[in-house]
């Protein structure tokens, strides 16, 4: 038996490692996906006052700190047993749209863009953001500009681009100024134009990646995502819907408070990332996916004009419940457009300028659960506090965790498709990593952080001796 180790996987947000075991004929016998660092937020937050949780847990992730802030303030709202004023809920959603924009732009244009635009087989020395700036400056500049717009929305609302402290238990800590509203509105047309050109680029590319469409994984799984009471896409609020592999609703209107009834967590012996599963089906049969692909599979529609046009075209082309992992990219771009349109709708709602933006209360419940759609999928924060409001226990289920079982299976599908064992090529292994990049995994979120990024692939014999190696 021979083993290939891809350590670490590159151009993803976090540190992961893939092990591929080959059988005697050189075919893939087994693969393993490991997440390799652990941070311990669920324990070390013990004793902290609940109102510190938003700013502490934002530090789980510098890419989607807003998601953690929002899940956390929602859990705190529940501990205070209050509902934020209507304007505050809308402002939080607006902030979230800024984050979806910057995170999706980063994923598509700057992390996966080099594979899609320069090619999976292109020179690894320039297959990155800088290579994209050199060869396709317009696409790179678009990516930088769209990410910047999302970050600016966050900074305009919350004062800082990364780890701001504007969202608080009970609402937000200052109302929106009309001048800020107008500034964001003024930037929207250019941002939408970029989102649409990204979408057009990907739609053309899908035809060029016919093989990857299947090879990146097309095994059917369940899907989960938030929807509102009409079944429309929701990113900030709403209840969780699970659909079966053929798109039938399995569970609807699951509130955060009921998550333990439907979501179980399995510890994986060779990864620091746990594997949540759909409890009624057990582990690992209850595998489900979250994130852009899943959200567009559970929602009846996006409910904004232009994104709906794209949504229906997408489903017409790929069916009711597309399963191809490569389509995460496509779904992500439709969501980008949705986030921008949603921003516009929120800003044009007169209540957005209302000055009542924060409800005050103390500890009125000893437990609180907050649930939002992070860019990569459903995020849950669950806290228990004592009468003084000090945290006594916490559980966090992050987006990439939900996808753990599916990612592991897809890595195997992809490796089996491309790797024959006789010769290791860079393009082959880049595609296996491409599976992970499609999920846009956020492994720093997974209570882990990354180490370094090099690719060291070794073909080992059963005794561990190196038969072939490749460093790029």
């Amino acid at each position, binding site marked *: 038996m021979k083993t290939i180790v891809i350590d670490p996987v*590159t*151009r*993803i947000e*976090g540190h992961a490692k893939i092990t591929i075991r080959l059988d005697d004929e050189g075919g893939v016998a087994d693969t393993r996906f*490991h997440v*390799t*660092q*652990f*941070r*311990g937020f*669920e*324990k*070390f*937050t*013990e004793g902290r006052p609940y109102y510190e949780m938003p700013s*502490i847990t934002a*530090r789980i*992730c*510098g*890419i989607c700190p807003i998601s953690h802030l929002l899940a956390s303030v929602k859990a705190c709202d529940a501990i205070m047993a209050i509902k934020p004023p209507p304007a505050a809920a809308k402002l939080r959603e607006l902030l979230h749209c800024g984050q979806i924009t910057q995170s999706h732009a*980063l994923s598509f244009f*700057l992390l996966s863009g*080099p594979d899609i635009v320069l090619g999976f087989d292109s020179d690894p020395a320039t297959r*990155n*953001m*800088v290579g994209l*700036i050199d060869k396709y400056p317009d696409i*790179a*500049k678009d990516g*930088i*500009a769209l*990410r910047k717009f999302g*970050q600016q929305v966050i900074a305009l609302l919350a004062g800082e*681009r*990364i780890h701001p402290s504007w969202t608080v238990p009970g609402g937000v800590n200052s109302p929106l100024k009309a001048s800020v509203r107008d500034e964001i509105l003024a930037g929207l047309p250019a941002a939408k134009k970029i989102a649409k050109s990204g979408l057009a680029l990907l739609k053309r590319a899908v035809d060029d990646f016919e093989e990857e469409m299947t090879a990146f994984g097309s095994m059917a799984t369940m899907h989960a995502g938030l929807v509102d009471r009409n079944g429309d896409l929701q990113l900030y609020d709403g209840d969780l819907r699970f659909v079966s592999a053929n798109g039938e609703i399995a569970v609807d209107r699951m509130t955060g408070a009921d998550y333990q009834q439907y979501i*179980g*967590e*399995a*510890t*994986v*012996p*060779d*990864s*620091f990332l*746990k594997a949540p*599963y759909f409890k009624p089906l057990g*582990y690992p049969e209850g595998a489900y996916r979250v994130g852009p692909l899943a959200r567009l599979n559970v929602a009846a529609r996006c409910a904004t004009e232009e994104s709906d046009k794209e949504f229906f075209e997408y489903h017409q082309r790929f069916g009711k419940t597309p399963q191809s992992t490569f389509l995460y990219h496509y779904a992500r771009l439709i969501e980008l457009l949705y986030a921008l349109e949603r921003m516009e709708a929120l800003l044009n709602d007169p209540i957005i300028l209302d000055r009542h933006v924060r409800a005050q209360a103390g500890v009125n419940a000893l437990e609180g659960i907050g649930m939002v759609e992070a860019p990569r999928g459903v995020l849950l924060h669950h806290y228990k506090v004592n009468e003084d409001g000090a945290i006594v*226990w916490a*559980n966090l289920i992050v987006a990439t965790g939900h996808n753990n079982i599916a990612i592991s299976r897809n890595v195997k599908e992809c490796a089996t498709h491309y790797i024959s064992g006789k010769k290791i090529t860079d393009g082959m292994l*880049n595609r296996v990593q491409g599976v992970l990049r499609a999920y846009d995994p956020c492994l*720093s979120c997974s209570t882990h*952080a*990354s*180490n*370094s*990024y*090099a*690719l060291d692939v070794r073909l080992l014999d059963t005794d561990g001796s190196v038969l072939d190696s490749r*460093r*790029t």
Partner: protein
Amino acid sequence: MTKARLATMWLDGCSGCHMSLLDLDEALIPISQRVQIVYGPLVDPREYPEGVDVALVEGAVGTEEDIEKMRMVRERTRILVALGDCAVTSNVAGMRNPFKLKDIFNRAYVENADVNKNPPSDPALPVLLRHAVPLHDVVKVDLHVPGCPPSAETIGFVVTELLEGRIPDLRTRTRFG
């Protein structure tokens, strides 16, 4: 013009410092013309090369693997920068330090799990240090850049000053938090 060789590293941190680097936005374009990013999460697979001019390191040192890696980085790098509060003081990464590792693992993998209630222990996973420590506990650091995260302007100033061959004076350019 020979391009300066820049590397970035991400240890036990949240990636926020790397995101702040990306927050240089379009200013990244002229910088990318003056430097070659020879290693880091934003570029493709590479062994950490010899002869790196500047390494920006985000995050605290949390595992035995981090220590080995940083010793190697130190040997191959001229100017090593601790980027952000986790690298400078261990910050959020160090919040686990008052707790026993066993208790931290039990919370995540035994109490908060329904299936396979055992902490992962495969040899494929790195061994956690008893405490997450700042970078300067492990290797000599040439420049400390505090902030959670340091602002894009600060990072841009650091990089351009280093490119000019000067060690940046950060006294007026950083603040707490």
